C-alpha cells in the first residue's frame, strides 16, 4: 500500500479554508508530543501555551500589541509573495524604519508637536523603503537573488543600530547604557486606555483593509497576481516584472519600516541594540498562514502573537526556554506549507499490487 498525491483539476475552495485549520491542529498535537518528550505534562503545557493568553483582558490587550507589527509586516509581505518576489529581509527593513524614525527624538528631542510624530512615521516608512530598494535594485540590474540579499541586509541593519546606540546616538544621561533618549509625549504613539494598546493597531488595520481592496478590486492587484502566477502571461499582458519587483519591495519595506518606528515609539520606548523578538521573520509565517491574503494575515498575526505570549508564560510557569516560541513557529510554518499541498492535490491510497495481475 502506498499513498499517492493526485492532482485536482482546480484548486479546492474547501481545502483553501481548511488547510490552515488542519495545520494549527497538527501543530498543537506536535507541540504536545514535544512537551511530553521533554518531560512536561503535555495538556497543562498546551493550556499555558495556547489558551492562557486569552484568559484575561490584560493578556488580550498584550496580544493585540504583539500582533500589531506582525500585521503591518505580514500584509506587505503577503503582497510581495503573491507577486513571487521573496523579501525575506523584513526584519532589516523594520530595523531601518526604527532607526530613521528615531532621528527625530534623538536629534530634535525638544520638538513636541503632532508634526513630530508624523515626521517620525514618514521617516520610518522611508527607512524601510530605502533598505528594501537595495535588493530590488540589485535583482533588477544584476539578477542577484533577492532572498539572499534581503536576508544579509538584516544583519547589516542590526549591526548599524548596535553601533549607533553604543556610540554616536547614546543617551548622554543614560549611565553608559547602550540606548538612546526615551521617546516621550508627541514623540511616542498615543496610548488607548491604561495598558500598552496604542494607535499602531489602527494603522495596521487600515493597511490591511487598503491592501485587501488593492488585491481584490484593482488593476494593480490583478497585475501582482498575474506576474506571481505566470510571469510570461504577465509580460504578454504588458506588465513589467522589473517595475513589479520594485513596487512590492517598496511596499513591503515601507510597511516593515512603519512597524519598526511604531514598535520603538510605543512598547520599546527608545532605540536599543535589541528592538524586536524576530517580528520580521515571524511575519513570513504570518503571511503564509494567512493565505497571502491581507485579511487572513490579521487573523494569522493574532495567532502567532499567542505563541509569543504563550512562550513567555511557559517560561515562567514551566521553566521552558523562551526559544520554545520559535520552535512552535517553525512547526507551524512546516504544517502550513505541508497542508497547502492539499489545495491542489488530493491524497489517494493505492493498493501495492498492480491491477493487471488480478483481472
Amino acid at each position, binding site marked *: 500500500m502506498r499513498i499517492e498525491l493526485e492532482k485536482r483539476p*482546480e484548486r479546492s475552495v474547501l481545502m483553501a479554508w481548511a488547510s490552515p485549520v488542519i495545520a494549527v491542529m497538527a501543530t498543537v498535537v506536535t507541540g504536545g508530543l514535544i512537551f511530553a518528550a521533554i518531560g512536561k505534562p503535555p495538556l497543562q503545557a498546551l493550556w499555558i501555551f495556547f489558551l492562557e493568553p486569552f484568559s484575561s483582558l490584560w493578556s488580550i490587550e498584550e496580544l493585540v500589541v504583539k500582533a500589531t507589527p506582525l500585521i503591518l509586516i505580514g500584509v506587505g509581505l503577503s503582497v510581495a509573495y503573491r507577486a513571487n518576489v521573496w523579501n525575506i529581509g523584513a526584519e532589516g527593513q523594520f530595523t531601518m524604519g526604527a532607526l530613521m524614525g528615531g532621528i527625530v527624538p534623538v536629534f530634535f528631542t525638544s520638538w513636541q508637536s503632532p508634526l513630530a510624530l508624523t515626521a517620525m512615521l514618514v521617516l520610518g516608512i522611508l527607512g524601510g523603503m530605502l533598505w528594501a530598494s537595495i535588493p530590488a535594485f540589485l535583482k533588477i540590474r544584476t539578477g542577484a537573488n533577492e532572498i539572499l540579499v534581503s536576508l544579509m541586509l538584516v544583519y547589516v541593519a542590526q549591526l548599524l543600530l548596535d553601533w549607533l546606540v553604543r556610540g554616536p546616538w547614546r543617551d548622554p544621561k543614560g549611565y553608559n547604557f547602550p540606548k538612546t533618549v526615551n521617546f516621550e509625549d508627541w514623540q511616542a504613539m498615543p496610548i488607548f486606555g491604561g495598558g500598552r494598546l496604542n494607535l499602531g493597531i489602527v494603522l495596521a488595520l487600515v493597511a490591511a483593509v487598503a491592501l485587501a481592496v488593492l488585491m481584490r*478590486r484593482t*488593476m494593480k492587484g490583478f497585475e501582482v497576481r498575474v506576474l506571481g502566477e*505566470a510571469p510570461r502571461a504577465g509580460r504578454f499582458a504588458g506588465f513589467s516584472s522589473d517595475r513589479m519587483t520594485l513596487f512590492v519591495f517598496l511596499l513591503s519595506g515601507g510597511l516593515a519600516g512603519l512597524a519598526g518606528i511604531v514598535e520603538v515609539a510605543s512598547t520599546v520606548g527608545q532605540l536599543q541594540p535589541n528592538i524586536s523578538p524576530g517580528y520580521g521573520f515571524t511575519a513570513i509565517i504570518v503571511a503564509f498562514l494567512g493565505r497571502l491574503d491581507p485579511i487572513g494575515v490579521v487573523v494569522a498575526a493574532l495567532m502567532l502573537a499567542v505563541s509569543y505570549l504563550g512562550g513567555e508564560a511557559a517560561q515562567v510557569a514551566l521553566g521552558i526556554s523562551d526559544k520554545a516560541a520559535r520552535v512552535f513557529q517553525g512547526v507551524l510554518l512546516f504544517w502550513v506549507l505541508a497542508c497547502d499541498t492539499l489545495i491542489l492535490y488530493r491524497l489517494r491510497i493505492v493498493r501495492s499490487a498492480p491491477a493487471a495481475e488480478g*483481472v
Partner: protein
Amino acid sequence: MSASVTAEAGAGRGEAETSEFLVEARGIVKKFGAFTANDQVDLAIRPGEIHALLGENGAGKSTLVKMLYGSLQPTAGRIFWKGEPVVVTDPGRARDLGIGMVFQHFSLFEALSVTENIALALPNASDMNALAARIASVSRDYGLPLEPRATVADLSVGERQRIEIVRCLLQEPKLLIMDEPTAVLTPQEADQLFLTLERLASEGCAVLYISHRLEEVKRLCHASTILRHGKVVARVDPSKETAASLARLMVGADVHAIRPKHARVAGPTRLYVDQLDLPANGPFAVALQKVSLELRAGEILAIAGVAGNGQSELFDALSGERRVDRAGAVVIEGEPCGHLGVGERRELGAAFVPEERLGHGAVPAFRLSENVVLTRDSIFADAARRLLGFLDFRAADETAARVSSAYDVRKGKPDPEARSLSGGNLQKFVVGRELDRKPLVLVVNQPTWGVDAGAAALIRQALVDLAADGAGVLVISQDLDEIFEIADRIAVISRGALSPGYDAHVMTLEKVGLLMGGAHGGSEAIEGALKLREADGRAY
C-alpha cells in the same frame, strides 16, 4: 560490455516465436476516476510489422502506449509478450523485455554531448570511448548520421530525434514505439526516418507508430488500430484506405471542410515589418536576421518552419513582448511601434495569440473572466476608473460568457479556472478572446497545436472569416496541412531568416521543404528557392 549485449540480442532475434504476435494487449481498461480513457482495447503487433495507432487527441492513444511502456498500469486487462502474460511494472521492465520508446518531447540535456546524453540513459555505461564508437557504428548502419561528440544544443530537431532513436537502438529493442515522430521534422527529414523504420522492420523489429498524419501512415504502415473515445473502432490496412476514409474512422464523421473565402482583394497594409533584427536572448535562442514582411487587409499570411527556427522570437518581436530600438522596424496600421510595448500595440488594433496556452496566453490558476482582463486592461480600466484602477468584474464576466458561447468553449461550470479546460477548449477561448475585440491585425503562433480536429476546424474557420472581414492575419505554424488549407501567401522561416512570401497556389510541399532546409543548406536548396522566386512574379 558492448560486445556481449550485441551477441545476446543477435541470439534473441533468432529465437523461435511461441506466438504469432510479438506483443498483444487484451481487454485493456484504464480509468482515471470516473473517466474511462481506454475501454476494452485489444491491440496485437507481429514481429517486423509497422503498426499505426490512430486517433484524435484524447482518443486514448498515449494512455495505451504508456501502459505498454510501463509508466501506467491498466485497471483491467492483460498484456502478452511473445504469448506469455507479463506485467510491465515500470519503464525499466519494458526495456528489459525489449521495448523502446521515442517520445514526442525529447528529454535531452542541451549542454551535454550526444554520447553523454546516451550514457545517462544506459545502465552501467562507463567506457565513453567505446560507447561513442558504438553510437557511430549504429547510427551509420541505420542511416541516422550522428556525431557522438557534438553538443546537443548545436543540433537540429531532426538530429536530436536521431539521438533518441539511437538511444533505443543501442538497447536492441524488439518493439519500438514512436509518438508523433514527424511532427517536428521537415518533409525530407521525415523521408529519411521512414527509410530507417522500414530497415528496422525488415530486420524483424516491430514498430508502433503513433501519428495523425494520414498520408504518411498510408505510405509506411502495414496495419493500423484506430481508437475513438477510448475504444477500438476499426482495424484496417492503411495502404488500402484513403486519407479521407481514415479520417472518417478517427473522427466518426466527415471532417468539416474549411469554406474558402471570396477572392482576395489587396487591401491597405495592416502590418509591415522592415529589416527586423533581434539578438538571441540566451545560449539556445535564435537571433532574427533582417526579417521583412508585409501583411495586407483581407489576407492570411502563413509562416511555415520547423520548430525552434525563430518562430517564438518573431512572435515576441511582433507582439512587443520584446521591443526593438528602431520604431520603424515594426509598423502596425501605419504607426511605427517597434519601441512600443504590447499594450500600446493592442491599442493600435493588433491582437496576439501565443503558442503556449497555459502560462503565456492564459494564467492557469485564473478564472476565464480574469483571463479576459489579461489582454484588455486598457478597456476595463477606462478613463474614470483608470485613476483608481478598479476592475469591472461584470464586464469581464459578460465578455467571458460571450466568447464562450460564440466559440463553443465547453466547460464544466460557468467560470472555471483556465487549467481545468481541455487544450482544444482553452485554445478556442484564447483565440475567441482576441477575435472578440475585432482586431485589425491578428498574429497567431501555432493556432491549433495539440487541439482536436473539431476545435482545429472551428479555429481555422474563424481565422478565415476574420481575414474575409478585412483584417490581416499572420499565422505562424508547423502544420503544413493547416497552412495549405487556409493561407493566401506562404513564407518560410529558417534559422531566424524569413523567405519572401509566395502565393499559396504556386507553393508545393516539396518547395516548402526546401525552404525549411534553408538557404544555409546545400546549393540545391538555394537553387530551388531561386527557381521558385522566378516562377512567382507576385512575390515581392
